[in-house]
């Protein structure tokens, strides 16, 4: 069994999915939590439920829903033009990974953005800085450890994504067979050697991700401690 294919494919799919999720998650976390008007907040609450839904669904259910959406008869797949809609393509694998990792990124980003010291933001406003400038120069840098942690979680979820990917991208070696799908095939066909190798790689990746998440947690705690200590005189 060729092990290089699934590893490279997983890195590409998860990498692209994480970039998309990071941008989308940050954007949604910022916009949905900034509305003031009542109808705006209701709409934001509804959209948030949709974003977080895949966390509650079993992966096969997410996979089935995506199958309906991306298939040649579905609302998205029919626009794509190919005879099978978006199914069995690497793009479908990326979409599946984005859908399941977005809730994690969104939650992390939302928590990080809303725990930025509101006085800092208020101060920036009184100085005359525009909302966009405040977001990029003050809010995001201060929320960065939490945002980075969210990206690490999103990457972890994307790399481990199996059920939904299997449904919409298929398990096609060389084209859509990511590490989890390769592991599944190896186990199913009794190829314990390959299965063990893939397991080892997955464990190593998980360790790397946990290290990043722990780092971001420490940075967030440290900056919060500094803020609390820095309020009064010494």
């Amino acid at each position, binding site marked *: 069994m060729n092990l290089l294919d699934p590893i490279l494919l997983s890195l590409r799919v998860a990498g692209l999915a994480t970039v998309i999720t990071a941008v989308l998650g940050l954007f949604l976390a910022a916009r949905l939590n900034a509305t003031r008007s009542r109808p705006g907040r209701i709409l934001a609450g509804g959209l948030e439920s949709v974003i977080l839904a895949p966390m509650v669904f079993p992966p096969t259910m997410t996979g089935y829903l995506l199958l309906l959406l991306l298939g040649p008869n579905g609302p998205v797949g029919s626009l794509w033009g190919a005879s099978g809609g978006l199914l069995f393509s690497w793009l479908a694998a990326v979409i599946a990974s984005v859908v399941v990792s977005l809730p994690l990124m969104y939650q992390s980003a939302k928590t990080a953005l809303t725990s930025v*010291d509101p*006085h*800092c933001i*208020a*101060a*920036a*406003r*009184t*100085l*005359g*800085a*525009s909302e966009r*400038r405040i977001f990029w*120069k*003050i809010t995001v*840098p*201060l929320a960065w450890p939490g945002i980075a942690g969210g990206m690490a979680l999103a990457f972890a979820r994307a790399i481990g994504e199996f059920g939904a990917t299997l449904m919409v991208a298929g398990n096609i070696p060389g084209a859509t067979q990511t590490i989890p799908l390769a592991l599944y095939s190896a186990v199913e066909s009794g190829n314990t050697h390959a299965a063990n190798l893939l397991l080892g790689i997955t464990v190593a990746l998980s360790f790397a991700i946990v290290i990043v998440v722990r780092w971001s947690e420490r940075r967030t705690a440290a*900056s919060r401690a*500094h*803020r609390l*200590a*820095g*309020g*009064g*005189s*010494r």
Partner: protein
Amino acid sequence: MIQATCTRQLPEYMLDVSLSVAPGETLVIQGESGAGKTSLLECIAGLAAPDCGTIIINQVTVWSSQDRINLSPQERAAGFVFQDTALFPHMSARENVSFAVTAGYRRRHETVPQKKAVAALAQQEFERLGIAHLAHARPRMLSGGERQRLALARALAAQPSVLLLDEPFSALDRKTREEMWRIVRELKTGTRLSLVLVTHDHEEAQVLADRILQIDRGLIHDDA
């Protein structure tokens, strides 16, 4: 110059205040904690909204419940010094002040000067407040008094038309506080900047005020 009339429902009682500050005048608002002093300042700055009323800064109506006017804090150009300084922890002292300098230029729709010019302007503010040697320090490395000076420098660097200070020196020790009083009085000479300072310290009020306003339970008691 400020003219403000506001009413606002607070948790304990109703804030119902009317005040005016002449150009170059320092108004001190004194009262117990929770009497509504901070709320009043926030309403003037645009960080909070009164239920009802009118606020005019330098002849521009920034808030009117009747005419439905509500200018953002950015547009009001009301400098604010917070009790906890609210300095940007991820930036050095110089970057904090430079941020304010460029923000001020943008607010006034003037071309932002080059980096060097901005740095020079920041340096000016540092020297005015005696903290030039701290330019590269992060806020968390500074003492309480140094932080408040930096907060003041930053607020002034944006060239506001009025300056609001919310119990800025209450966390400092006696000696540092006296030092800060001296700095504030020095700042006032030669400017037409209206200052509104909130404090619960009688002596501070006496030293800094041109006029004192007593607020008790949301209502003005005294106008001395």
